[in-house]
């Protein structure tokens, strides 16, 4: 059977269709060409031998592209500077050539470096623009910086803790009560700085921080170990006798803590919720008592120092997402820090008690503001 020739009508339709496809392909090609022309995008800045032209720029907030043209006779760099920090830079622009720089800018005033360091700096004024009213949702990578910095903090604190625990162990072994008391205080302060991550490991938390009340036979219970067990001996009985097994146990627990912390991934939501929890726990323990013991006050100082680090890490994100929440959080922290300076143990001063609960309350509201659940 011979194939039948297509009818002229089918041919015409086919031709017409291929013509349409070709047009579409050309259009796609044209669009792609357009996207590939980065030159002279956005705002044009010329850097001459004596400075930037124009020397003053104004752009709206958001993603901005600058095209920097080097009109001087030496390779230059161009930077946007926020205070003393370089916010964005384009280095090694060859004389006669141009380079683009794209950066996301928040409203405010910035400086521009313009070639020679002895040249006058330009100014860059970023206006709020239209989109600035609605905060953008945080990028998935927004917490990488704060979490990494928190890991650096816990690593460095852990190193200090190990030094103090070794000193404590040594003092117990040689029976030096004063040295043991001092080392205990130093170690306990760091243990409180690390209360949030230690809370991740309930077994170690119990070994290190449980109190006599938590055990059936109270301070006679063989399971009772850690900081409070040692404190009973060092500050109440005022003796290092028979303490070495406890000190050995503490060294082992701190070693285990170091290993686990090195591998622990702390979820971003835990920074705030964990801080709220430890402050609330301290508060709840103290409300039933008539006066603060020196130890309770020292513990709160340590906890507050650890929480202050977390607040500092979350603050830039919070400023962006919920400036009002950031303000009241910082105010609650400042009040507690101030009252801690003035507080003295044994007095009936209840300010730090209220302050700790207030800060815990502020902390429990910020995960929502940061779009985190937990």
């Amino acid at each position: 059977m011979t194939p039948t020739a297509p009818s002229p009508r089918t041919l015409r339709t086919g031709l017409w269709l291929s013509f349409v496809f070709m047009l579409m392909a050309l259009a796609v090609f044209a669009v792609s060409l357009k996207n590939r022309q980065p030159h002279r995008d956005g705002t044009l800045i010329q850097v001459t031998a004596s400075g930037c032209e124009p020397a003053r720029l104004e752009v709206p907030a958001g993603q901005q592209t600058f095209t920097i043209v080097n009109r001087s006779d030496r390779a230059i760099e161009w930077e946007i500077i926020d205070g003393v920090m370089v916010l964005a830079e384009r280095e090694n622009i060859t004389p006669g050539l141009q380079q683009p720089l794209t950066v996301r800018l928040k409203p405010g005033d910035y400086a521009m470096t313009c070639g020679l360091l002895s040249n006058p700096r330009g100014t860059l004024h970023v206006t709020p623009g239209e989109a600035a009213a609605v905060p953008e949702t945080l990028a998935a990578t927004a917490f990488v910086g704060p979490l990494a910095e928190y890991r650096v903090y816990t690593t460095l604190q852990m190193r200090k803790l190990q030094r103090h625990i070794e000193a404590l162990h040594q003092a117990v072994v040689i029976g030096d009560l004063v040295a043991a008391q001092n080392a205990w205080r130093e170690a306990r302060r760091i243990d409180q700085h690390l209360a949030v991550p230690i809370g991740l490991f309930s077994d170690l938390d119990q070994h290190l921080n449980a109190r006599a009340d938590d055990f059936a036979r109270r301070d006679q219970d063989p399971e009772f170990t850690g900081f409070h067990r040692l404190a009973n001996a060092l500050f109440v009985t005022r003796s290092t006798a028979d303490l070495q097994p406890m000190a050995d146990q503490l060294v082992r627990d701190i070693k285990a803590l170091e290993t686990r912390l090195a591998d622990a991934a702390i979820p971003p939501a835990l920074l705030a919720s964990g801080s709220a929890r430890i402050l609330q726990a301290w508060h709840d323990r103290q409300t039933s008592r008539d006066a603060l013991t020196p130890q309770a006050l020292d513990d709160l100082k340590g906890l507050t120092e650890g929480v202050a680090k977390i607040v500092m890490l979350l603050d830039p994100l919070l400023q962006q997402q919920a400036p009002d929440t950031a303000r009241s959080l910082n105010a609650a922290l400042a009040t507690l820090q101030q009252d801690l300076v003035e507080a003295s143990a044994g007095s009936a001063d209840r300010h730090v008690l209220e302050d700790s609960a207030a800060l815990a309350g502020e902390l429990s509201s910020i995960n929502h503001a940061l779009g985190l659940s937990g």
Partner: protein
Amino acid sequence: MNLRNTLPALGALALMTFQLPAQAAVSPDALVGPVAEYKLYVLDNLEDLVSHTEAFTAAIRAGDVDKARALYAPTRVYYERIEPIAELFADLDARIDAREDDYEHGVKDPDFTGFHRLEYALFHDHSTKGMNGYAQGLMDNINTLDSRVQDLTFPPKTVVGGAAALMEEVAATKVSGEEDRYSRTDLWDFQANVDGAREIFSLFRPLAEQEDADTVQRIQQNFDHVEAILAEYRVDPQHPEKGFDAYDEVSDTHRRALVGPVTVLAEDLSTLRGLLGLN
């Protein structure tokens, strides 16, 4: 489904395949550890930078030209390794590491301070005369840098981008020999920039490898290649602390041979940010 509906759907699918940026499979959580490790690396180097600067500036104040000359390059190493972070502070970087060409009046400019001002005194004038103020200023600025970095939350983009930035720095100022024009200790800085870039690369390598094993392999080879050339100019390969020959002694063939791998390294390393989902 008939053909008329299927074709455009297939076309759309094909277009999407080509036009969507590759979705980074690296989870942001995985970046936390390497960024933290990098800060610890920078803090270690800062500690060394502070102690070496103390010895270097003490030698200048004591008027010991020979000792100060010997300490110049080994001190700078710690600054050059951590440049991606040190450069974030525009004011300090200018006071610590600017070159005379950054100023209209060159060496005579009263604002020209830091390592290279001292280099000019030690290696051009062979003297420490009038340098006490500059030495003290350098020490103060290094101490300020140290305390600022302690408090700094490292921006992940800067950390990952730092590897490429260091190699661009090498390409722009080290191969040409303009960095240490009086002391001719450029190779010390060169190696330090490579060390700093390699540290960043090593920390993120396991993550980058999952995304683009070929590029990672090429980066590794080019690092090895560059370091092999550098190694030929070590004063004593058994004792790396003795450093390098003067840059004048590097042959033109080797200078040219360095340009290629350094440029490719800078380009390849600049893809790291995208591979790790940080663009």
